[in-house]
């Protein structure tokens, strides 16, 4: 179970299931898995009956458990319809298929959609999240049964460190933590760096608000991270590894801790792994969970027990990293890709994705979209496919306005670029970035100035506060945006914001300050008219900024149903039943309640 499904009540379902199985004395094996990604369908319960399709039920509650068991045992489906069925499943590590259904699909199940017919899953390609929701993360055997640690065995016994690095370079794998730097070349530099003691670090800080792809992998498939790190360490010549996880991820810490212990017991960590002469171990390092601590030099400072501030040196961590020793840091998702590359080869991996961005990327799809959850797609998949096909589009018939990618310091990509393929270059050229994979969908009720203000506010608080342009500059920028939203914008603000952005990008010490203007620059690039409407006309076109909007009753449409009058918290609405109502602007606090409740669209925002 992952944090997102527990939030939906999966632990209660698990308990109810365990109790019921015990009470009925059933010979069922009950296991917890990570998340399949689709939050709105959690808790998800899958039933594996020998030789029959695997069945998955969505939104299960503890109350439904007895009936659900009856149905599965007797294979009748009167009350609960399965969400999907799985007849066969490809194992991405081996390329082989597991057949759940060996004979014919029972008649009663034929109409149940196959998992690949569910739009949410159909367009996904799962490499990094290959085991999430499928195996019990606490069970090493299940990981191995899915092909786990075979890549490690192969690399340690058959490949030279240089050969591994060549393969990773050839695969085109680029860091999934934000920068998109070639993983293989980074390993190369660290291998070549002088020093006998070297470290590898897994960056599991994941400070972007709302993003949880790394958490999901650490919780749902910890061995995949560990296996990737051991391979990387062998290639680089590191003897010690660290996984940096924030304290706010207790389940990730717990699952990683157990997985490390099991790997150690099995001889996968420690001295002379697989008799190769290579020794390596991994420890967990817990962080206080600051956004800036995800930045590699701040992360190292934090691990060394110093303040989590980016380091002020023009040297590279691959040469002078943790305790001044050569250190290779990669993101969680980067590490999980490694075993698959080693198992299937660079050619196979680079055949997925685009020329410059190979493989897949996990995104956390949130905001104004029907299917909220984690999605893993091949690079090059378009935003349209992600938002519409996988995400099920924007709810309530609203219009797709923009998608914000790249975390708080990413940018907004407008609806007009909906056919943009996602890739490092493509997103960068559009004024945003890949970042760690946050994707926030926005509809036409989103004000782009308000959004920019929201992100700048986050960054102003999360800046480490060391250097002037970022510490004070982000704050001043936020203040100006706040002014604009409050109707105090001044002519020239747009030019000022652009100028400040340039100076901040150039002058900041680390990439936090260097990318902090992105939310402003990208919204200015595509939605400058919205800024101008706020500044010059004192209007918020999206109807969001309270100081700039008024609620009015359209006389022709109002039926005098008194619904609005009833919900208004300030009694700003007057009018008798069946008569046109009116809003007293001096009393209205712009709470939107009347607007939401009116069934006749008689209330408008201006």
């Amino acid at each position: 179970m992952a944090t997102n499904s527990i939030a939906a009540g999966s632990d209660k379902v698990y308990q109810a299931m365990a109790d019921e199985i015990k009470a009925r004395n059933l010979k069922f094996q009950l296991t917890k898995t990570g998340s399949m990604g689709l939050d709105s369908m959690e808790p998800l319960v899958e039933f594996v009956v020998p030789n029959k399709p695997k069945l998955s039920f969505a939104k299960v509650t503890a109350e439904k458990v007895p009936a659900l068991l009856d149905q599965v045992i007797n294979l009748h489906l009167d009350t609960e319809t399965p969400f999907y069925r799985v007849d066969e499943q490809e194992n991405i590590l081996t390329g082989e298929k597991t057949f759940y259904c060996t004979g014919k699909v029972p008649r009663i199940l034929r109409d149940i959609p196959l998992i690949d017919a569910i739009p949410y899953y159909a367009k996904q390609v799962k490499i990094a999240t290959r085991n999430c929701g499928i195996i019990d993360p606490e069970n090493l055997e299940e990981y191995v049964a899915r092909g786990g640690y075979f890549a490690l065995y192969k690399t340690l016994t058959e490949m030279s460190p240089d050969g591994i690095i060549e393969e990773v370079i050839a695969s085109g794998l680029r860091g999934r933590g934000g920068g998109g730097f070639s993983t293989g070349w980074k390993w190369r530099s660290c291998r070549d760096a002088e020093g006998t003691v070297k470290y590898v670090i897994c960056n599991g800080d994941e400070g972007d608000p709302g993003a949880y792809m790394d958490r999901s992998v650490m919780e749902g498939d910890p061995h995949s991270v560990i296996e990737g790190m051991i391979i990387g360490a062998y290639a680089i010549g590191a003897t010690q590894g660290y996984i940096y996880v924030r304290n706010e991820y207790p389940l990730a810490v717990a699952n990683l801790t157990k997985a490390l212990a099991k790997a150690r017991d099995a001889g996968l960590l420690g001295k002379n792994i697989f008799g190769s002469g290579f020794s390596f171990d991994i420890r967990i390092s817990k962080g206080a969970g600051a956004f800036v601590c995800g930045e590699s030099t701040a992360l190292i400072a934090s691990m060394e027990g110093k303040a989590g501030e980016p380091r002020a040196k023009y040297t590279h961590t691959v040469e002078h990293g943790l305790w001044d020793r050569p250190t290779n840091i990669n993101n969680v998702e980067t590490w999980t890709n490694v075993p698959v590359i080693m198992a299937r080869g660079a050619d196979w991996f680079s055949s997925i994705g685009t020329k410059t961005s190979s493989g897949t990327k996990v995104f956390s799809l949130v905001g104004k979209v029907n299917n909220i959850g984690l999605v893993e797609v091949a690079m090059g998949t378009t935003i349209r496919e992600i938002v519409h096909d996988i995400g099920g589009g924007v709810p309530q018939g609203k219009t797709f306005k923009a998608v914000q990618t790249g975390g708080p310091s990413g940018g907004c990509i407008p609806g007009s670029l909906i056919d943009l393929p996602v890739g490092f270059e493509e997103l960068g050229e559009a004024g945003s970035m890949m970042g760690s994979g946050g994707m926030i969908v926005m509809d036409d009720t989103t004000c782009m100035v308000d959004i920019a203000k929201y992100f700048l506010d986050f960054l102003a608080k999360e800046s480490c506060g060391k250097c002037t342009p970022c510490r004070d500059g982000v704050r001043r920028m936020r203040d100006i945006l706040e002014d604009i939203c409050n109707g105090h914008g001044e002519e020239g603000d747009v030019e000022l914001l652009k100028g400040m952005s340039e100076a901040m990008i150039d002058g900041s010490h680390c990439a936090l300050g260097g990318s902090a203007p992105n939310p402003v620059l990208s919204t200015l690039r595509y939605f400058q008219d919205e800024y101008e409407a706020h500044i010059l006309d004192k209007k918020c076109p999206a109807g969001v900024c309270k100081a700039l909007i008024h609620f009015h009753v359209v006389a022709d449409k109002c039926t005098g149903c008194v619904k609005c009058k009833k919900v208004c918290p300030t009694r700003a609405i007057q009018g008798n039943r069946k008569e046109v109502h009116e809003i007293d602007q001096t009393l209205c606090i712009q709470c939107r309640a009347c607007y939401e409740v009116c069934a006749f669209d008689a209330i408008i925002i201006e």
Partner: protein
Amino acid sequence: MVNLVIDGKNIQAKKGTTLLAVARENGIDIPTLCSHESVENSGACRLCVVEITKGKTKKIVTSCLYKAEDGLMVETGNERVLKVRKFVMQLLMARCPTSGVIRDLAVKMGVVPEPRFKPNEDGKKCIMCRLCVQVCEHVVGVSALGFAFRGTDKALGTPFREPSSVCIGCGSCAYICPTQQIVMTSTEDTRSICGRTFKMRACSVCGRYFAPEDQLAFISEKTGVSVEDLSVCVSCR
């Protein structure tokens, strides 16, 4: 030795020297606020930026940290550089409008306040240069000062909130503070700094009060020399 070009001038410099030092040795002025010869540079203020060209790439770096390299082309006052410096100064002017040091430097640089940055009203003059923190930790060896919080709320720690129990009243922080945020006041036999008042020790020879008791105790503990032996002022030694 390395060869580089600064503002069109061919310059030879010792390897490992910072661009700031090289520039200054050659009479090129670069403004700084957080650099001081007694402590390691931190790169916090970002005033000393210059533009470097390395092969095909140009980038802005802080001259107080970046070391001279062979073949480097450096520009210390082009438009891009001045833009960053102006921004830094405008931010600092709005941060500490009462600081004469900042105002004078701005005037010297020809930078006027940005009217859209509303000046802070807390009356503080701290520009977060961290010189005090560094001198206290690395030169004095006490670590009485530090930063608390992060982001906009980041503030210089302990001394401004609660009197520090480890401060020895040496006054180094007040001496190094570029904006006089840290103030030291004295009477004949006391000295007040960082929220505490220290008793001074009189010189056993001339009787003049010359150093805080706590500081002498600290030095005594560190060096093993007795406090009595330390109780002679510099002029009488």
